[in-house]
């Protein structure tokens, strides 16, 4: 049945298991591959019937994603002279001219600022708290740890209304700072729980030696514990980043323009006559790629983190 069994699974069992799992994995891949392919189609290829597997690739979707265009008459196009770059050429074929950058760039930048900002803050606060819980005799440690965990079980919409009112009063609504604080609050439970596990595993003798050598608590924490916990901190950071990167409910309820991240924006990319699917797919691809790369490169840490977190909770 497994390596745990005395009798290793026979070759035939492994074959069957392999075929089923690989089959499932391939089916899983199809929607993701389809998104990426659609990003390289023309709008008419994207909505052809039946769906096209073989097509002439184009970057039109990407050009449409990053630009705002307007329709022009043939005479107007004539006056403009030859296209200056490939992007203008592509939209000119559709009888359009580029009038400026689209808002995707802004939204993507917001995702980066808010994602990394809240990850940084969650890690700083989370590491401090995890160290505190791990090394000091804190009254009611278990209750506090459970309190921290329970905040994650709250449905976002249940607290969204007062957060909305609170942010409106404080002038934090639709600001980067407001979203960073919010995502930090959501992520911190996971950060504290995961990091406490990692810090618990570092022998306390190291710090004791440092303290005897005349280090202060903070120096011991900074110079001895942090370097030891680096891997754990890095994998926790990836989790926080993935959450903040993908979050939608708060982003759509609490932001309207200035601090809006990409997830609420991508589904709203309109082309001629409805959603511009190749541009939507291009946006989704750009947005998904960092996470996919993280996952593949750091798969061991990520998988460990998921199961570790689950088992501890």
């Amino acid at each position, binding site marked *: *049945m497994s390596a745990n069994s005395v009798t290793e699974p026979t070759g035939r069992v492994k074959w069957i298991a392999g075929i*089923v799992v690989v089959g499932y994995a391939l089916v899983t891949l199809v929607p*993701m591959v389809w998104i990426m392919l659609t990003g390289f189609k023309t709008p008419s290829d994207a909505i052809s019937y039946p769906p096209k597997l073989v097509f002439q690739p184009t970057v039109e979707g990407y050009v449409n994603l990053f630009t705002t265009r307007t329709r022009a008459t043939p005479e107007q196009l004539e006056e403009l002279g030859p296209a200056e770059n490939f992007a203008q050429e592509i939209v000119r074929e559709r009888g359009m001219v580029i009038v400026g950058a689209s808002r995707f760039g802004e939204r993507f930048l917001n995702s980066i600022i808010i994602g990394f900002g809240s990850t940084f803050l969650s890690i700083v606060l989370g590491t401090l708290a995890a160290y505190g819980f791990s090394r000091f005799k804190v009254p009611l440690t278990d209750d506090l740890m459970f309190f921290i965990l329970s905040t994650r079980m709250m449905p976002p*919409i249940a607290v969204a209304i007062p957060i909305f009112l609170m942010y409106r009063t404080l002038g934090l609504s639709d600001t980067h700072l407001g979203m960073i604080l919010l995502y930090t609050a959501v992520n911190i439970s996971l950060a*504290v729980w995961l990091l406490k596990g990692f810090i618990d595993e570092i022998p306390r003798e190291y710090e004791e030696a440092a303290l005897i050598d005349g280090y202060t608590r903070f120096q011991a924490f900074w110079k001895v514990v942090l370097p030891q916990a680096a891997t754990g901190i890095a994998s926790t950071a990836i989790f926080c980043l993935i959450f903040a990167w993908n979050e*939608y409910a708060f982003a759509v309820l609490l932001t309207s323009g200035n601090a809006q991240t990409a997830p609420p924006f991508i589904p709203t990319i309109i082309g001629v006559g409805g959603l511009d699917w190749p541009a939507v797919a291009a946006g989704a691809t750009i947005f998904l790629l960092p996470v996919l790369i993280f996952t593949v490169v750091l798969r061991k840490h990520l998988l460990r983190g998921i199961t570790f977190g689950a088992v501890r909770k």
Partner: protein
Amino acid sequence: MTDKASVPERMVRATPPGVARTVRGLSDRALAWVFIGPTILLLLAINIFPLLWTIYLSFTNYRANRFNRDVEWVGLRNYERVLTDDDIWQAMQATAHFVVWTIVLQVLIGFTLAWLINAKFRGSNFWTTIIVLPMMLSPAVVGNFWTFLYQPQIGLFNAVVGFLTGTDPASFEMIGDVDLAPWAIVIVDTWMWTPFVMLICLAGLRSIPAYVYEAAEIDRASAWRQFWTITVPMVLPFLMLAVLFRGIENFKMFDLVVQLTGGGPGSVTELASINLKREAFEKWRTGYSSAFAIVLFVTVFGLASIYVKALNKVKER
């Protein structure tokens, strides 16, 4: 999940005593608060304070889009209306359908996959990573894109199902059809989150020590018997934990389904959170929606705490 007794045993691991009682001025106790304080303060400000505020609002007729109106205390009237509202009962039914079916499918498929992967065929690690990818994606973007896959004429999903079953791909519409839409959201959630259940089960399977099987082998227990008397019971606590997480998550499901169906057609896929969002941020019935939020919250915590008690019993066995 309210009392300490229901906390899973691993959570209440005792904290070892501090290293040194006092170091250079600041006592350890004061230092501990320097480390832990900021986190607690942030959570109080952004989680607990809003929650208390929600509770307060749920007893008023406040509307967040009307600044100047006097806020009146209406007692339990909001709760009364929530509990007798047909829309809300329909939303709860849609939520129950969604939660139950996603859990059933994800447990069946997830456990089977974990069990197969545990046979350690060549390349199993690589394919595990491939299977895990969907759960790393943004639910809103995924939901949005699945609407494209579900298009009756041009969508890949209809083309594939049509090809496999020999029906006309244009003859059925997954998200526009009252009967099919609840299944459309179940399918996408299952695609996205089965890997989570699979990973937890895999952790469970790997935690079973080899000697248990060796002992069974000596007793000449059949493979079938080993599966039902060793594998299943040993993985059960893990599986139940995965169910707990998926249950809580899907009970408050919002982003994926909002983008996928927007609650439609009509309101057959209008889950509790979607209904809540509509009441709170479109109709601006703040007091009423706060009451609904509290009802939801109490329901989740109530169910979760009963469930955790059962989970602890299973663990003790």
